[in-house]
């Protein structure tokens, strides 16, 4: 099977519109999370990492929705200077999102064309046409592991020889639909989220888009590689994580095995770390039982909030920058360990010779995913 290389990437977030800008910001401890008073979103003030709404006025004359403009902005920056042509018949577009254009239900509910306009395959087609992709785009929608699953899907399509390049873009927009849902679960934090901390009270949501271009072309063999990954299901509960972390552990072990690595080869872990009580507890159990308890670990949710369908991509791209710059980022919001298994949560910007990173995620429906990146 051919190796899969990361050719180019972009993060388009409230704290920066390129990967370089984003990494500089998080390196300085800058977060996109702020308190927002916006009755279109919620009656009470809420913490979230959001784009400036003035930048994204709803304009019915526009072809693209806010969600699609985010996708386009991120893909555009990534394709530029990447050397990859969207119109190449060996290139495929993969879109990752949990809710896509769902905000149209809040603003355009009576539109008879709503069903087709809201569908994620419509957004994928519009974005593909915008850049001139010739192959049918794929859409992954698998809750909070969508971003990692999209990377794994791209990797597999390249390894099977079906395509040579995959442009993988993820985004989600935070509106009342999503926020009220997490609030109904009592899952939203009353302060900026504090992953793995003793005083954590839940999730902070965030908006963003991110793009990663993968290629199996050996001309990119000096780039960081996607070594392998795996997905598992808890088969336990549709909205609560496993009590044991056994299934996330299995996904981690499968990912390591496919990558040809052992736990001791991993230099740092980029965890999901949503800062809900149960998620962080489950993850700590899985990470400790996979033998990764001493490995430095971070959650990036304190900088970006939980960006849903973009999270796996944004956090993977930041982790890839960490590998390139030999810098492990601290877990913003974390002070005192608040999970029952001892894990090594990174609390300061740490220089170290880094070669290999494990990225994990878990989500509703009992899904878990793990992927390994390496120099």
């Amino acid at each position, binding site marked *: 099977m051919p190796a899969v290389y990361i050719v180019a990437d972009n993060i388009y977030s409230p704290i920066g519109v390129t990967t370089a800008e984003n990494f500089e910001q998080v390196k300085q401890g800058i977060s996109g999370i702020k308190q927002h008073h916006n009755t279109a979103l919620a009656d009470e003030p809420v913490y979230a990492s959001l784009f400036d709404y003035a930048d994204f006025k709803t304009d019915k004359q526009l072809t693209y929705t806010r969600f699609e403009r985010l996708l386009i902005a991120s893909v555009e920056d990534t394709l530029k200077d990447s050397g990859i042509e969207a119109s190449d018949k060996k290139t495929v577009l993969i879109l990752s999102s949990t809710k896509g254009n769902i905000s149209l239900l809040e603003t355009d509910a009576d539109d008879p064309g709503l069903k087709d306009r809201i569908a994620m395959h419509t957004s994928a087609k519009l974005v593909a046409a915008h850049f001139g992709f010739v192959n049918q785009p794929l859409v992954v929608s698998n809750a909070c592991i969508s971003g990692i699953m999209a990377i794994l899907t791209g990797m*597999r399509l390249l390894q*099977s020889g079906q395509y040579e390049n995959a442009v993988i873009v993820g985004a989600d927009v935070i509106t009342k639909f999503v926020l009220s*849902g*997490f609030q109904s679960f009592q899952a939203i934090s009353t302060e900026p989220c504090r992953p793995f901390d003793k005083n954590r009270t839940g999730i902070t949501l965030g908006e963003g888009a991110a793009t990663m271009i993968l290629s199996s072309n050996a001309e990119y063999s000096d780039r960081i590689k996607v070594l392998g990954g795996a997905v598992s299901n808890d088969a336990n509960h549709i909205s609560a994580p496993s009590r044991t972390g056994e299934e996330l552990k299995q996904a981690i072990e499968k990912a390591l095995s496919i990558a040809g690595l052992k736990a001791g080869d991993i230099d740092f872990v980029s965890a999901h770390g949503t800062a809900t009580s149960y998620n962080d507890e489950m993850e700590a159990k899985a990470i400790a039982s996979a033998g990764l308890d001493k490995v430095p670990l971070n959650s990036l949710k304190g900088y970006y909030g939980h960006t849903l369908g973009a999270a796996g991509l944004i956090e993977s791209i930041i982790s890839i920058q960490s590998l390139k710059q030999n810098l492990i980022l601290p877990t913003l919001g974390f002070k005192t360990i608040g999970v029952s298994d001892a894990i090594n949560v990174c609390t300061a910007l740490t220089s170290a010779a880094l070669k290999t990173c494990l990225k994990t995620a878990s989500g509703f*429906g009992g899904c878990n995913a793990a992927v390994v990146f390496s120099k």
Partner: protein
Amino acid sequence: MYLNNYITSYCTIVKNVVYKNEVPVFENRNADLPAFLLSAYQHFGLNYPKFYKMDNLSKLGWIASEILLKGSHIKDYQPEDVGLVLSNANSSLDSDLKYIKSVSDIPSPALFVYTLPNIMIGEICIRNNFKGEDAFFIFEKFDAGFIELYVNNLLNSNALSACICGWVDVFEDEYKAVLFLVEKEERDNAILFSKKNLDGIFENLVIDKG
């Protein structure tokens, strides 16, 4: 190396008729979707209290999976060796509309949890203790070529030993479910797992087993 895999069972639910391996096994023509799903649940003697709290998408996919797996060898596999690759056009829009109506009153967590299409996969995994690879993809139309490629990749790389794949789509009273059980072993009456056979079954054409 290209290895052959086999469709060892398939189930279609469309226009208020349930087909198992092309044979109609239940119909209830004069019912809306919730009533039809309940009548199928009762007809097949299914006994699973969690069924009643599911949304229509999960109910449809769950019933199709029950009928698909009846008489199969699925219990012979380890939990981590069985997975699901499902797809549809309308994601969870049917439940999204029901949830957004609740928001102006009291947002309902019981409705919100079904506003993700992969919850249906979670429901089938919980029922059967399947712990392997899952994936949910959105397509405008059933893409047999992609399903063939992706599931063959999972089976031939040994990520999975058996995979339930197909299409489950619901929007209001329009719906269709077509599920396939794909295994490495060519069992009695198995059909080659190929784009042509997937499309044939999806369109409810007679399959040439030779």
